[in-house]
């Protein structure tokens, strides 16, 4: 069962369709599937819904799909860095569903783990709780949040072997393993495909069972807020 594909286009093109629901890993511009996003832009699939913590910046990340008007709806927690996003949102061209960041992460994991709903304290007493079931456990009030299943997961990892085992690097892990879990199909871009057997089984962050297709490529890995201190 071959999982390694030659290019982002080869890995994605037969999977994409108009109106599909996609989960993307990444936090800000850190650990985003930049090559797969570009391939979706090149493909031209439209009316897409994205579950992604952020929406990129104007010319990088999901931002490039906003510019090309391929995105119908975003499910996100924070979208402050994107002027085109704001324009489309305020003009009503783009639907937005805000999720608390931890709720979004847990909804992805839940769907991947066969859990259709879970209770959380997050958002009780806020607009997030409106219309959701409230329930008491041990005298405290919680709301019901539902698992978030998608058609396609797009993920950025550091290393993969040919069986799909993944390692992430530092804070580029973030939403990537969770996005990987919640999709019917999961496509991953990595910096390096290493020989099967070269990853220690105890160091693998996401087992290959979650990964259907892998591509290797060169990543820009843009930095959003370059902050430094004076050398000592």
């Amino acid at each position, binding site marked *: 069962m071959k999982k390694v594909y030659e290019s982002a286009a080869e890995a994605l093109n037969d999977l994409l369709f108009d109106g599909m629901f996609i989960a993307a890993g990444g936090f800000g511009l850190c650990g985003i599937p930049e090559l797969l996003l570009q391939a979706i832009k090149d493909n031209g699939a439209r009316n897409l819904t994205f579950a992604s913590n952020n929406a990129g910046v104007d010319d990088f990340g999901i931002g490039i799909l906003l510019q090309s008007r391929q995105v119908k709806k975003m499910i996100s927690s924070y979208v402050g860095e994107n002027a085109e996003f704001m324009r489309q949102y305020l003009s009503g061209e783009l639907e937005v569903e805000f999720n608390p960041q931890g709720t*979004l992460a847990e909804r992805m994991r839940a769907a991947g783990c066969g859990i259709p709903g879970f209770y959380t304290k997050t958002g009780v007493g806020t607009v*997030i709780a409106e219309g959701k079931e409230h329930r008491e456990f041990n005298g405290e009030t919680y709301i019901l949040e539902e698992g978030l299943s998608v058609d396609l997961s797009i993920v950025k990892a550091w290393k993969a072997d040919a069986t799909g085992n993944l390692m992430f690097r530092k*804070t580029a892990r973030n939403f990537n393993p969770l996005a990987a879990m919640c999709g019917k199909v999961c496509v991953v871009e990595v910096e390096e495909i290493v020989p099967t057997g070269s990853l220690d089984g105890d160091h693998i962050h996401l087992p290959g069972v979650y990964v259907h297709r892998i591509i290797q490529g060169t990543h820009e890995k843009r930095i959003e807020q370059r902050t430094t201190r004076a050398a000592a």
Partner: protein
Amino acid sequence: MAWDRNQMAARAALELQDGMYVNLGIGIPTLVSNFIPEGITVTLQSENGMLGTGPFPVEGDEDADLINAGKQTITELPQTSYFDSAIAFGMIRGGKIAMAILGAMEVAENGDLANWMIPGKLVKGMGGAMDLVAGVGRVVVVMDHTNKHGDSKLLTACTLPLTGKAVVDRIITNLGVLDVVEGGLKIIETADGVTEDELRAATAATIV
């Protein structure tokens, strides 16, 4: 006279206890890490998946894979560990993080907090703020006492959409320190050169 940003951060740092795991919000709360008292070890959590955040890197050492929740490049420490966002918020929601120090737009006398949206203005999203205030052991707000029009940000009831209901434990402003208690806010201390009367006069919330 009143506290400046650094003095507010220094005062907030006195909330820290040895061994605590703490989450610091963006803005003045981030400055708190510059004032951690001598002899106290605290571990800073960044909700994008890191325990043990270090200082900004020196120029040339920036790593695109190593950022904090404010998306700034940072460094790691010897004890740093990384994990995914579900675990990051699992430890927040599960009460494993002892304290969050956050900014705010408004705090009500019952502990309600508003810090994520202004209706009719740009809405950027709540990020991790709702999870933090719902989950951590103690919520300390650090903010200016009044807004740019001079109106109190400590209110009888919030006017803005809430981030969390009855979640704030302590408020540190440029004028002093107040706790949320039964019936309203209680003055714990006043800032250097600020009298209790001045603090009361600047506060719309009930002071008990």
